[in-house]
């Protein structure tokens, strides 16, 4: 069952999400899809933004999504996200992902490494899923590489409880052709099922 794990006081609740990936992995599209799904789910305030500036294939980049009950009035870059989604685990070696994630925040990683190996960062909630494996199993690839951005939306839904699969499906169908939408959604569902979440250590 999905649940909200954040309690940030009653006024101006806003969830900030940073997507980490490499150019070509579709982080910008993932950030957009999440904004769209959240809006459909009656969050009145959503924004999604790419890293401002030029984009290079393969280079580390981020995109962001803000989700709030009220229309969003700020457009500055996110300092400390509530949730970080990592599409490529090799980024841990080159980007300080933890520096932009708040303590007790949620970290969602596309990895084959089992959850118990991710124990060095005890101050976060961690969720893992083999999104690349799921994409390959469902023959969802683009230019020879598995499509990982859409399954990570399923992992996001599972781990955060902020958006439901129903609205992710709607957002996908809005953006993609019927056939593409349904193929992508298959991986979203699979990732939702296979995501394993660990509460932070106390």
């Amino acid at each position, binding site marked *: 069952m999905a649940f909200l794990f954040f309690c940030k006081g009653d006024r101006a609740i806003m969830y900030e999400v940073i997507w980490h990936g490499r150019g070509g992995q579709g982080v910008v599209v993932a950030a957009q899809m999440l904004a769209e799904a959240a809006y459909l789910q009656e969050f009145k305030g959503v924004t*999604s933004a790419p890293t401002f500036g030029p984009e290079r294939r393969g280079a580390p980049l981020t995109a962001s999504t803000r989700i709030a009950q009220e229309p969003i009035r700020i457009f500055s870059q996110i300092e400390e996200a509530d949730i970080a989604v990592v599409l490529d685990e090799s980024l841990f070696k080159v980007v300080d992902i933890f520096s932009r994630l708040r303590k007790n925040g949620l970290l969602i990683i596309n990895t084959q490494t089992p959850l118990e190996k991710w124990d060095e960062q005890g101050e976060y909630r961690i969720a893992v899923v083999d999104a690349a494996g799921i994409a390959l199993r469902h023959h969802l690839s683009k230019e020879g590489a598995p499509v990982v951005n859409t399954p990570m939306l399923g992992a996001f839904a599972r781990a955060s409880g902020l958006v439901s699969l129903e609205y992710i499906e709607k957002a996908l169908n809005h953006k993609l052709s019927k056939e593409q939408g349904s193929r992508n959604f298959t991986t979203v569902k699979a990732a939702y099922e296979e995501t394993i979440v660990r509460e932070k250590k106390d």
Partner: protein
Amino acid sequence: MSNVQIMTGNQAAAIGAKLSGVQVVAAYPITPQSQLAEILSQYIEGGELKAEYVRVEGEHSALTVCISASTVGARVFTATSANGLLYMHEQLHWAAGSRLPIVMCCVNRGVGAPWTIFNDQQDSISQRDTGWIQIYCRNNQEILDTIIQSYRIAEEVYAPIMVCYDGFVLSHTMMPVDIPDPEKVREFLPPYQAHTILSPEDPRTLNAVLFPWRRANSEGVLCDGYMEMRYKLQAALERSPAVIQETSRRFAEVFGRDHGGLSWGYRMEDAELIMTGMGSLASEATQAADILRDEGIKAGVVGIRVFRPFPAKNLKETFRGAKGIVIFEKGISYGYEGALSSDLKAAFYGSENQAPVHNYIAGLGGRDVKARELADAARASWAEMQTGIVEKPTTWLNCYTG
């Protein structure tokens, strides 16, 4: 029924131009405006927008095409950024002097040198004195709506309008935008009825050289000199605030959204410390006001939408209760201070409002400016103002100044 879609500022601008029924588009791509030019060319190529897209080799020509098409009676649109706008500079004066109701988007970007592709407002601020009306938008809905409003305003006062919005910060950020019903837009903004006198059957010269004094034409009629024609441009801009406010009010009636006419306020009811600025920076300041209010400081925000004509009369009223004013600007008049700061202080000249004014230059070349940082600056200024520091040098926010 609303039709909300999640989109970038550039998409919103393209839809605004399409709904306005523009007939000629001439634009040269430049970051961060490019997506806007691309979407419009797609609309036209796909037949979704019945208009002509004139491909040009640069921005000077883009505006020249718009000037020509507008002169013969078409509703025209263009858009640019930064050095592209600077390259148009000569034609900006020409468009205004010709009294053409051209609407263009300036997707605000810092100017070179050194090169930057990122956001500030130096590009449009530097075009302040060209005779264009300038409107600054704070979110993507406002961009779309302002373009539609702008054609109505421009075609009533016969002055061109620059719709300014922050590059990347708005142009590339997606957010919900309610797309107005095309039928309702057509009612609000009927097709342009030009007063053109140009026709192939009756060739004439427009804007020929004028001598310093008024002169009789060949039929003996005494005609305006250069100075009379320039005076009329000034008079048109002076009467435009009333048209802008009326258009905003009428728009709100039809579409249920009021972006504020000349300026907008946030938590202004009993505000003593007023932060002000233009575009997304003013929107960011609204969160700074929340932070300061939580601390017990009566803070509010005035977002200035219309920078030219400068709504001095309106702002004098708006700032009446201020005990301290903090201005954040993404541009500067080098060697002095922010242009908005100078104008706002001048508006208070001789009035009873002699509140201290502190000026911050922020976010040049895309440097990030957070609500927290705006609150810190305003709080520091507020403390200084309590100790009697009325004037202080312009402060560069988030900048290493040695």
